[in-house]
């Protein structure tokens, strides 16, 4: 055991580290939506290895050391191989609407990345199966490994680029294999392969084999195709891969929504890509404001026509364009908030001269913080809170962000922003304009909901909307727009050939004058959303434009099932642009999770002897199925909820995942003691556990928003500690029902034990994806309440089963 425990720790750390690393890598080479697939894949690995061990238990037990060392070695090798292979699968998400082959490619990615998780899980499963007498110590080291692995990869990603972090990670299972391999019966072949693998690593795997193969359709790849363009700076952290591109021959000129009437051309710019997309520009500035004349001719300049020397808060300062916009318009002060320190360093230090030392301007104060957290903690009042375009049109238009949680554009967020605008101050948000309108109408409906929640009876008096051919800017004023304001808005729009879509007192004749649409959809939509039958309108609208909330923060999700047949029928005549492929991929992922779970986990179990009392299979099958769903529903909902608090999806996944693992493990270890005590007094331990989970979860549904609001502005370390404290008691409770059920099955129907593991694993694989789908459709609270219901039914099943056996 002296060697086995640290070896288990190393494999466990490698597995969780690899899971997080893959999420990071796939966000760079593809898009964010693969995160759910990776969680499902890791669970599939555990499920399938459970089945594998159940089938070959006898053979594996006699060769335990060799089996463990081989699995660990194969884990190490396939970590690297599958990393390279998976990226070579020619999957093009954007083509999925046209080319069914892409679904096959998606399945290939799923299968390739399943392999390393299978070997990792086989190691852990083998230890649990073959060394049962030390189970609590094994559990401890397994979970400790998971926690350390999450910390290790996050820390490593601050220092190394992902492909180098991989080389560090793969050493962990290799060491584990070496530690156990020397004791095994197959030590000679094992040591040979280990040495060979080590030699390959020392000789150096050609870097080109591990280089990230970024989709050629992402912004960075496209920018680098342009003649003479080149990467001039790369920095990597868990928050993102930042790449700066210079293009001397075909200069970058990023000026979304620039008026046709302008005589100004943007000055030279550097393009900054985060995770190879979402371009932000650093604009050359030599102190001559006249050179920035184009900034007066974009829709985002609208609020400045209403305000004189305003105090401005820029959320998502990025490359500094919106800070320049404020300075160009004579802002009195500018607080610039940017989440990513690498981005601020670029503008404030590396390219400070290029950017005209804009962050050194005495009027500008730079804050490296998360936007919601900054606003929640701030006592300041601003004349203008400005949120510019934070994403690329391509990503926005293709439905690539459907699954992205965005806590920037929710009802609660807008309420918070408005609470920080001075009387007469303005919140200004600019979005890409889609046709038919989706983003802009959803923003309008979210703003209206926020105003109503603040007690404003006539939200329309505080709203103004203008549009160019590709952007729309929405203003929400703290107070009603005055006739002078309205005159300024009209003149600003007219002189730049922008169209007004809403201001108090607008007439149909004021709309659709310069950028002609078949119908002035944005005006009609805003009018309808402000009217008496707003709900009915939103329901009838063919896209989801109901307000985004912290409970359902999917601002970029517009898909409605009812619309699907129509857009598919129109696919060949331009309807493809109306399909959100991010959503389609999630559904495809769910389908392949179901198939893979059936084939790799449940089907092989048919070979296991089935000798158990009648009624066991349906009853206990349902019990473990429900537990699988319920556990993952809560875990996934928490991962998504904690993104608001921890500021970044990767932090949230790392903290919530390892938090749940560690404390569910402790709960599992405590369950036996608890069961003994409770059973002695005639109470059902699983019912107590389910009640505890129910009580805590419901408490959290109400408490979390308040706690998040109170602590969101604190440092990451404090927030992580708070998160773990919150997760701990819940996870301890959630760790109990599974071992309690397993103990019951082991006593009454031992042959059903592998099935219990398999069914539970199968449900987990599905529910990792299903939870996200349900959250998008119905919100986190729904997912959590559903999970509680499943726990309650499970508790009832086990109680009934135990009584009938008694």
């Amino acid at each position, binding site marked *: 055991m002296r060697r086995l425990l640290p070896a288990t720790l190393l494999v466990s750390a490698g597995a969780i580290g690899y899971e997080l690393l893959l999420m990071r890598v796939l966000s760079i080479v593809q898009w964010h939506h693969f995160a759910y697939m990776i969680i499902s894949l890791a669970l599939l690995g555990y499920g399938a290895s459970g089945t594998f061990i159940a089938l070959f238990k006898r053979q594996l037990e006699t060769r335990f050391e060799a089996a463990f060392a081989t699995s660990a070695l194969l884990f190490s090798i396939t970590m690297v191989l599958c990393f390279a292979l998976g990226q070579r699968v020619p999957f093009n998400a954007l083509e999925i609407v046209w080319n069914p082959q892409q679904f096959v490619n998606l399945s290939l990615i799923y299968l390739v990345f399943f392999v390393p998780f299978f070997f990792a899980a086989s190691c852990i499963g083998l230890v649990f199966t073959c060394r049962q007498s030390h189970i609590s110590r094994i559990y401890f080291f397994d979970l400790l490994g998971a926690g350390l692995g999450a910390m290790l990869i996050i820390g490593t990603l601050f220092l190394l680029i992902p492909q180098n972090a991989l080389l560090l990670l793969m050493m962990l299972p290799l060491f584990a294999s070496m530690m156990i391999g020397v004791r095994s019966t197959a030590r000679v072949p094992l040591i040979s392969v280990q040495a060979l693998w080590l030699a390959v690593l020392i000789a150096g795997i050609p870097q080109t084999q591990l280089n990230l193969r970024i989709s050629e359709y992402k912004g960075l790849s496209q920018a680098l195709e*342009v*003649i003479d363009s080149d990467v001039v700076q790369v920095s990597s952290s868990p928050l993102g891969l930042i790449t700066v591109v210079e293009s001397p021959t075909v200069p970058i000129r990023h000026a979304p*929504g620039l008026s046709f009437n302008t005589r100004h051309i943007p000055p030279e710019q550097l393009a900054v890509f985060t995770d190879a997309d979402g371009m932000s520009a650093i604009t050359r500035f030599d102190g001559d404001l006249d050179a920035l004349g184009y900034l007066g001719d974009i829709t985002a300049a609208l609020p400045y026509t209403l305000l004189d020397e305003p105090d401005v808060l820029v959320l998502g300062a990025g490359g500094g364009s919106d800070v320049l916009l404020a300075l160009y318009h004579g802002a009195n002060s500018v607080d610039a908030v940017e989440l990513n320190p690498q981005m601020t360093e670029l503008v404030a230090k590396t390219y400070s001269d290029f950017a005209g030392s804009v962050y050194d301007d005495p009027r500008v104060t730079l804050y490296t913080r998360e936007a919601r957290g900054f606003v929640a903690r701030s006592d300041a009042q601003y004349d203008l809170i400005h949120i510019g375009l934070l994403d690329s049109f391509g990503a926005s238009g293709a439905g690539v962000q459907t699954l992205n949680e965005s806590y920037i554009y929710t009802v609660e967020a807008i309420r918070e922003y408005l609470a920080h605008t001075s009387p007469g101050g303005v919140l200004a948000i600019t979005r890409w304009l889609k046709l038919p309108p989706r983003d802009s109408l959803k923003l309008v409906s979210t703003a209206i909901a926020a105003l109503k929640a603040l007690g404003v009876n006539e939200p329309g008096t505080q709203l103004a909307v203008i549009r160019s051919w590709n952007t729309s800017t929405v203003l929400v004023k703290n107070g009603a727009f005055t006739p002078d304001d309205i005159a300024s808005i009209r003149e600003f729009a007219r002189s730049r050939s922008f169209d007004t879509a809403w201001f108090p007192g607008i007439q149909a004749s004021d709309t659709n004058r310069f950028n002609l649409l078949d119908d002035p959809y944005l005006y009609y939509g805003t009018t309808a959303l402000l009217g008496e039958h707003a709900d009915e*309108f939103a329901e009838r609208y063919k896209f989801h434009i109901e307000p985004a909330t912290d409970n359902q923060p999917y601002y970029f999700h517009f898909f409605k099932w009812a619309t699907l047949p129509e857009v598919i029928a*129109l696919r060949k005549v331009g309807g*493809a642009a109306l399909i959100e492929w991010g959503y389609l991929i999630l559904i495809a992922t769910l389908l392949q999770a179901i198939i893979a779970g059936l084939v790799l986990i449940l089907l092989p179990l048919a070979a296991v002897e089935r000798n158990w009392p009648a009624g066991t299979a349906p009853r206990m099958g349902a019990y473990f199925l429900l537990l699988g769903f319920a556990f993952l529903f809560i875990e996934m909902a928490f991962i998504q909820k904690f993104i608001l608090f921890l500021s970044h999806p990767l932090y949230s996944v790392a903290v919530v995942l390892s938090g749940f693992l560690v404390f569910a493990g402790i709960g599992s270890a405590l369950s036996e003691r608890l069961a003994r005590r409770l059973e002695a007094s005639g109470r059902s331990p699983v019912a107590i556990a389910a009640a505890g989970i129910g009580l805590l979860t419901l408490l959290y549904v109400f408490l979390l928003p308040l706690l998040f609001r109170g602590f969101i502005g604190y440092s990451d370390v404090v927030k992580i500690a708070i998160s773990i404290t919150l997760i701990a008691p819940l996870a301890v409770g959630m760790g109990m029902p599974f071992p309690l059920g397993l103990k019951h099955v082991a006593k009454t129907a031992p042959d059903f034990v592998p099935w219990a593991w398999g069914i539970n694993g199968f449900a987990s694989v599905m529910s990792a994806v299903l939870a996200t789908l349900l959250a998008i459709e119905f919100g986190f609270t729904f997912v959590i309440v559903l999970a509680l219901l499943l726990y309650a039914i499970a508790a009832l099943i086990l109680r009934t089963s135990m009584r009938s056996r008694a």
Partner: protein
Amino acid sequence: MKLIVFILLFLSIAAHADDTDYAAERAALIEELGYYARLVGDMDGAGFSEAVLASMTSVKRHRFVPPAQVRFAYENQPLPIGHGQTISQPYIVALMTELVEPDADDVILEVGTGSGYQAAVLAELVDHVYSIEIIEPLANGAKQRLAQLGYTNITTRLGDGYYGWEDHAPFDAIVVTAAASHVPPPLIEQLKPGGRMVIPVGGRFMTQLLLLLEKTDEGEVITRQIAAVRFVPLTGAH
């Protein structure tokens, strides 16, 4: 002997395949385009003009796609051509060509040559097409391809399309096939009064809308945003 016969047979089939004109497939595609145009009532219900459909019939799309994509060349869908670019969906090409309202004596500027397919379709209808590409391999490929196909009224060059092509300006129409955050002011300047500019808006595989920019005789600019698809976002009356 049998082997030699087999090889000869194979080579003759292969040679034949290489020479395939795909005339039937092209005709079927053109019919499909006409059907869809009538179905969705684009172009105000007028469908595509005979001239545009004739041009689409004579331009061999399979010569503009990479070998692996040839079998899909006459599907009404965009196809990858490498370097993160696509050849547009034929329906969108027809729609864009129609919106340009090409006349026989027109001189047209295209920004974003890509495969050269859109330039070829336009060249069948107008006096001359000038086309600029910013991706070197694509620019070279298109230049070679268009020369091989005998297009003498298309001139291409590698370079920045932002400033148009001043030597040949002004243009009767400008087609911008590359996405941009804004319409370059120099291009508007190089458009003749009464001229039209068409820009597809959207991702590489999905054209969301077509921006039609018209410069009046007085030099005023008006745009129309033409959804590629006739899709009403509301059901019933509102």
